[in-house]
């Protein structure tokens, strides 16, 4: 595993994501349980942010909300200054496919598609011409180091290889934001380190904002900013939020 190099995207600084008083509650029986309580958060283009916290602290809920695959009970998620809470399901789907890449803990590859087809899928949704799709897929598979596995199905790949495919899929549509939920949880430490190295490299080379949710302390070492979430609270500058500069 390599340590963070300290090189970051040169256009770092433009505000991409903001949340305002983000609250999410769930009904458990007759009781209302808070998963997030009035979270204010901001991320700039080119950031590499690691959010950590114990299980059940609200990390994944927060990630789901900023990925606009879930809606907050109250508060707002703004992407490039545009509020998302009033947008339709269709508008949110378009937002996801054009601006957000997702990496899941369990990889979530489409089992019937090969590695290259999984990576190609977001481009199909964007109706990118076939030749351009093939070129971009080949290039990205090369970047993540699995060119020789392009025709294999997910079931024929190791955990690390699957996560590389998932990373390539998340990046193929050139999103401005990539959200990763426990990307190393199902990998051994060596493979996990390699995956994080790759994510960091892509952050540096593509100026993509990475927000990684994890409870793995090793992952935090890759962060430019480290944010801690606890009992659904996350406040910039507060004691339970640790904002560090890794370099």
């Amino acid at each position: 595993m390599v340590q963070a190099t300290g090189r970051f995207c040169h256009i770092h600084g433009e505000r991409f994501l903001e949340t305002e008083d983000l609250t999410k509650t769930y009904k458990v029986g007759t009781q209302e349980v808070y998963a997030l309580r009035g979270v204010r958060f901001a991320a700039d283009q080119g950031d590499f942010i690691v959010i950590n916290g114990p299980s059940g602290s609200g990390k994944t809920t927060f990630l789901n909300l900023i990925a606009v695959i879930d809606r907050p009970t109250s508060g707002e998620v703004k992407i490039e200054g545009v509020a998302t809470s009033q947008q339709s399901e269709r508008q949110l789907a378009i937002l996801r496919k054009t601006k957000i890449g997702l990496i899941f803990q369990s990889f979530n590859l489409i089992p019937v598609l090969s590695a290259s087809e999984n990576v190609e899928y977001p481009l199909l949704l964007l109706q990118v011409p076939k030749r351009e799709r093939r070129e971009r897929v080949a290039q990205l598979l090369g970047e993540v180091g699995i060119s020789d596995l392009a025709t294999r199905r997910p079931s024929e790949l190791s955990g690390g290889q699957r996560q590389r495919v998932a990373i390539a899929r998340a990046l193929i549509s050139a999103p401005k934001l990539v959200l990763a939920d426990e990307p190393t949880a199902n990998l051994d430490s060596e493979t996990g380190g390699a995956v994080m190295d790759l994510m960091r490299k892509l952050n540096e080379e593509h100026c993509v904002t990475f927000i990684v949710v994890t409870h793995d302390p090793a992952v935090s070492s890759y962060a430019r900013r480290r944010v801690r979430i606890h009992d659904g609270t996350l406040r910039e500058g507060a004691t339970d939020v640790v904002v560090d500069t890794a370099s």
Partner: protein
Amino acid sequence: MWWWIPLRSLWRNRRRALLSVAVIGLGTAISLFVLGFVESSRALIQQSTVQEYANLQIASPDLWNDTGQGYEYLISPDDAARITAILTTDSAYSGSTQELQFAGLLAAGNQTQVVNVTAIAPENGVLDFRDLVTDGRGLTASDAASVVIGRSLADRLSVAVGDVVTLTATTVAGAYNASPFRIVGIYRFTSEQFEGQVLFVPLAFAQALLDTQGVDRIVVALSRIGETAPAKRRIGDALAAAALPYEPRSWDELSPFYRQLSSYFDALFGFLTLAVSVLVFFIILQVLTLAFLERTREIGTLRALGTTRGEVFRLFFTESVWLALVGSAAGIGAGLLLGLVFNAVGIEWQPPGTIEPVKLAVTLGITTAIVPFCVSLVATLLSALYPSIQASRLSVVDSLRVD
């Protein structure tokens, strides 16, 4: 993408896909077989009915509606000539002849039987019933007091070819008239009732017996049975335009038995097809609901990647379109094969009221296949609607949580 991803999903779940195809195919094959059998039976009865009535018959509405007095409905020789002239101009016209039907009493020895007499122009080439004759011969142009009777009637009266019988009828003036007839032939027909009641005599001799020059109908043969309805319309219009007070009726209108049986066949096929479709609908609904439920996480992933609800619906519904197309096509193939085997075996059956067994057969062809194919296709696609809509409406977050 919208076609090959669903196809691959089906390939991945081959066992389930095969089960679905088998269910759809079985339903289609059953529908095809039943429809083929119904169409074959209908064609047999159609053939027999046309053999009895020809394609069209033209007569006075008084005859058709059983109104008027005595023989008022008879067609005069002048009108018959005008009608024939009109008929010959029709594109579907093949030939025509004149008939006179009346009721009479047939006596042989000390036995008497009420009969329906059909007086025909012998050797008319349109409807002379010669090919039905099994003993003796059919009527010829030189016959005078000759009669051809049915096998059942001959047996009942204990008469044979060469015997003399007496036919009594009422003349157009209302008087009784009787004449001896020599039996020159005995015919067989598919209906025992027809055989036991109908006898054939030469038209000229019947006119002499009834003391008339008229006929009660003109029987028309057309080039094709399918021309019946349009030809009837054209001829009806032409008769009306010529101020001739006669009305054409088609073979199916003349045979209440055919109409009833045809309705019965339609109901039978409709019910069976509905039952099979409902069965296919619920089985496929169950299979697809389970199949899509197992792929909840995959649906969540697709949605999270930016696939819209409409696109998810399209992906999953397209799987059903593949299933429906392959299943229905396989069913048509299986049904055709089953039909070929059935036809080759050549099972015979004697329907009630008939005199000879008929060979059961299944009509096989494109037109017979279209309805079962379409019905299975529609039933499958309808059954796929609900699970596909459900799949597209799943919550992304909840779907991703499913293991």
